[in-house]
């Protein structure tokens, strides 16, 4: 590391396969809807990208309530991917993002390979889409409801159809679940299947019992754990995958609340980060994280984001080399 710089002198651009972004801070899928509501608090065009809530082919009502429960330094959610479906998204939400100069990364989710393919064809060929994020933490109706993300073969199949049906030049990122024995195996499989980058991590499966009703608090019984509580698991996933698959662009997500948290993901190997649950605490979180990250980079003498990416892995290797 070099001496401190002025924050404005830091080059924040980051490259994720074919996507060149002004800066590495995005919203996390499902925590920012499609950007409109956050525009009340800051200009979403200032973010590296806006990742949309996962879009399905058909409209979906989502699950019954309660859909969330607060947990220590985190929360469980079980929304059930409520949304209006791809038609309404392309007609209304995507145009809004483009009109407001935001870079949209569209998250897609399906319950069969066919649905993923259809979504890829429609979203992945619409001008203005900066990238596709493939949420594979969904049950596969064609395979006993097993979650795609939990099986390297099924996960790979999803990514290969999405990559096949998405326009060249539009990167396809696979978003992985931490609820697996080896996230590196899943990562390797989806990269071999064509994923241009990886988003790490989706929520952890959790459950809470409501002692007033003596029933699971969530109507959906289990839910996804997110927030600062899971940050060490997310950083570990980034670290492991960065070491196992050097050169594959990674996007870190899980419990990021401050610029220092974002920097932790970068130096662990992520080229960009997403802010999710922290938005519920602070609607201005994504833009604040960006501002703080700039300062963190500057104060450590990182002239560009790319110098920070994987720095802890490299310095670890140096230490190992020096010791060995």
């Amino acid at each position, binding site marked *: 590391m070099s001496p401190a710089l002025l924050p404005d002198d830091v080059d924040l651009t980051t490259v994720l396969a074919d996507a060149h972004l002004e800066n590495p801070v995005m919203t996390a899928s499902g925590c920012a809807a499609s950007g409109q509501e956050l525009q009340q608090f800051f200009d979403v065009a200032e973010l590296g990208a806006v990742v949309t809530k996962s879009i399905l082919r058909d409209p979906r009502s*989502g699950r019954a309530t309660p859909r969330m429960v607060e947990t220590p330094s985190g929360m469980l959610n079980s929304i059930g991917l409520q949304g209006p479906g791809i038609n309404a998204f392309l007609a209304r939400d995507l145009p809004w993002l483009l009109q407001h100069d935001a870079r949209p990364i569209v998250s897609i989710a399906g319950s069969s390979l066919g649905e993923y393919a259809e979504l890829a064809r429609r979203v992945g060929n619409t001008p203005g889409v900066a990238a596709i994020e493939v949420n594979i933490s969904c049950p596969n109706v064609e395979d006993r409801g097993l979650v795609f993300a939990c099986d390297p073969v099924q996960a790979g199949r999803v990514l290969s159809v999405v990559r096949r049906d998405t326009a060249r030049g539009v990167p396809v990122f696979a978003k992985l679940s931490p609820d697996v024995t080896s996230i590196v195996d899943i990562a390797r499989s989806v990269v071999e299947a064509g994923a241009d980058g990886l988003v790490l991590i989706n929520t952890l499966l959790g459950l809470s019992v409501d002692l007033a009703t003596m029933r699971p608090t969530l109507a959906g019984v289990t839910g996804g754990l997110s*927030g600062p509580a899971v940050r060490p698991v997310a950083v570990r996933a980034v670290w492991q995958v960065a070491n196992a698959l050097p050169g594959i662009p990674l996007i870190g997500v899980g419990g990021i609340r401050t610029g220092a948290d974002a920097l932790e993901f970068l130096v662990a190997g992520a080229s960009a980060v997403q802010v999710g649950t922290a938005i519920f605490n602070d609607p201005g979180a994504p833009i604040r994280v960006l501002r703080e990250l700039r300062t963190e980079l500057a104060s450590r003498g990182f002239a560009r984001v790319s110098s920070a990416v994987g720095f802890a892995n490299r310095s670890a290797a140096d230490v190992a080399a020096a010791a060995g």
Partner: protein
Amino acid sequence: MTVRAPARGPIQVDGEVFSNKRVGAYAHLVLVADGIAERTRPGHFVALSVGGPTSARLLRRAFSIYRVRPAGIYGGTVEIVFAATGPGTQWLAERRAHDPVNVVGPLGRPFALPKEPVGCALVGGGYGSAPLFGLAARLRERGCGVHMVLGAATESRLFGALEAKRAAQSVTVTTEDGSVGIRGRVTDPLPSLLARHSIEVVYSCGPMGMLAAVTRVATQHGAWSQTAVEESMACGIGVCMTCVLPVVGDDGVTKMVRACVEGPVFAGDKVRWEAVGTVPAGTFGAPAAGGH
């Protein structure tokens, strides 16, 4: 850190406690939070962060706005009335003058006001009375008749009965234990009150069961009802989809709509009260039988 936004939407403000007093079973918190008052209309709510910098409680707590005062010699203030039930509200109850509390607001859709100077009933359960006082003032400005019905389990949980005497033409109080006013529920005196004062709009705020019952009475009487619901909210600003309830749209189709941005005030007859907590069959996007 203060994020400013266009003049009508919500803003985020680093607020500061002006005062925090006990009122019966509740706390009455006055926060200095510039810019909120000017944007607030009756029925709006604020979302407060709790626990300070070391907090394990990340989600904001939502509270109906009781009163606001625009910036004058002092900064603008916003007031809430709340019950200290869990860790977040207990933390708020312990705040003293000058302690910082971050505020996001005003949030949600306010009460719809009648265009004509009609008779209105304002029904509050427990701390649910709080947002009715600002509403009462607005209604009187428009020449509406204002009749308040305040109810609670017991006297200490009744809020604003005295203030109501100044705010309304008539005040009816009910408690379930009869410790003050009529023994019973707000819906007991309501039918005769609606008839007596030719009420055309019934506003209500309180527990879900009460809102459903008040709506039933209002509808029977042929009055409009405007209900302010309380759904568990993670974000309060419309981005998370946790706060939904089944509401019938103008197209007759039931949708799971967000209480934080499409509410908290809903036309009572549009809410599928019996189905709250479920996704009723036929809801837009509901799973087909055997589906997801």
